[in-house]
């Protein structure tokens, strides 16, 4: 059999195995029985193996081990990264796999290893949290705040544009107020008219949030409907290629169904 035929055959096998596998997973709607469980565990196992290969091929080998092998003396930072990674593993192995019986004291080497293992964890946390926080500030908080302020003070000659800018400012502040501030508590010592105003403002924000949640829910429904359509199309169109369907179609035609 030539390579093209082999490719087509393997694609065909992949199609049918995917079909059966999808049905096994769909069967979870009828309960978490053995067939569904096998499918779930198989999916998890295969996904984990795939991830392992990806990590090796795309990260550890080309970015760490291969450069160190080719030029071992040139890059101290990579050696340090390797050391930190190994420390992380050793600390995790000690903590998770070499568990002490409860009535034994922790040896000094264990304590040292746990302390050393905290260093890579702290580095990972430090870099991730720092980047996320600074990104929030630079990419979301400041630009959105700035554009809110700008849009709220656009006093153009056109009445509708001015009204729209006031609407945007009102809705944004109402939502922010409801989201972040306990207005009843804050306004407890204030005059009645202030309490009323804050309650109105926060109430507007609450209802606005519910409305927006409905809009988001509708778009999410469309998104998941697309996913369901895709899956059902795959299942039904694959089934239509089966011998069973083709035989049924032929019988229908013979019976004069058209």
């Amino acid at each position, binding site marked *: 059999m030539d390579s093209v035929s082999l490719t087509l055959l*393997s694609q065909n096998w*992949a199609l049918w*195995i*995917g079909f059966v*596998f*999808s049905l096994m*997973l769909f069967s979870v*709607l009828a309960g978490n029985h053995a067939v569904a469980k096998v499918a779930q*565990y198989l*999916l998890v*196992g*295969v996904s*984990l193996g*795939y991830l*392992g*290969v990806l990590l090796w091929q795309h*990260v550890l080998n080309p*970015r760490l081990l291969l450069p160190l092998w080719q030029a071992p003396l040139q890059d101290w*930072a990579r050696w340090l*990264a390797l050391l930190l990674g190994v420390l*992380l593993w050793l600390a*995790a192995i000690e903590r998770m*796999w070499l568990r002490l019986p409860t009535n034994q004291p922790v040896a000094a080497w264990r304590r040292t290893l746990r*302390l050393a293992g*905290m*260093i*890579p964890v*702290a*580095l990972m*946390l*430090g*870099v*991730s*949290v*720092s980047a996320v*926080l*600074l990104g929030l500030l*630079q990419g*979301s*908080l400041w630009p959105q705040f700035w554009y809110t302020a700008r849009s709220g003070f656009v006093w153009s000659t056109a009445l509708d544009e001015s009204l729209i800018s006031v609407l*945007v400012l009102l*809705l*944004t502040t*109402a*939502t922010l107020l409801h*989201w972040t501030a306990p207005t009843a508590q804050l306004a407890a010592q204030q005059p009645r008219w202030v309490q009323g105003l804050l309650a109105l403002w926060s109430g507007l*924000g609450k209802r*606005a949030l*519910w*409305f927006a*949640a*409905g*809009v988001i*829910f*509708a778009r999410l429904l469309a998104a*998941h*409907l697309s996913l*369901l359509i895709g*899956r059902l199309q*795959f299942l039904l169109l694959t089934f239509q290629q089966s011998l069973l369907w083709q035989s049924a179609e032929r019988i229908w035609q013979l019976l004069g169904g058209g």
Partner: protein
Amino acid sequence: MISSQRFGSNYLILFLIIFCFILIALDRSGVATLLHGTVVTLYQWLLLLASFALLFGIAHVLVVHLRRIQQGQPDWTYSLVLVTACLAVFVAGLLQPSGVTSPTVEWIFDALIAPGQATLYALIFFFMAAAAYQYLRLSYPAGRWMLAGALIVLIAQMPASYTLLPAVYGEWVGWLLQVPVMAIVRGAILGSTLALLIVGMRFLLGRSRS
């Protein structure tokens, strides 16, 4: 009593985190361009350490399930399926020079991973539709407003509404998305970002007192 060792280790960890924060802040702000190389090294370390952590996570899952098999716990047969599948894919990928782009691994991706993940996510729609039946009702105060928002957009995004309803309806819903809903979501983004920033700064400073 807190031992001096633990006391010191807590400060070491806090120092490392704050050190990273200062370096990255200075680099991103463009104040200290000399630090750029150091910051890039930190990011590379993050990439490598994350990979180490993920690999350990995979190994840990295997160990847990191997223990389950060894001890004959309930569902050990499923654990055997998981471990076998994981090792088979891992070994198949490592043995071939092209790794994930090898024919074997690509076949496994097309036959198992892609249909499996797609099927699991496709099931979510049924639960969402059932939740819509149960909760988007006029009788609930929040449900009323959510129902209004959902109905307006559902009708607009239904392709048939283009022929059944006047074109101005679609334009009006487009305006709704672009102006009022945008403003509401912006308020939510500002609020959640502020909250996240505060929580993050408290974490950085080691102050998680309530």
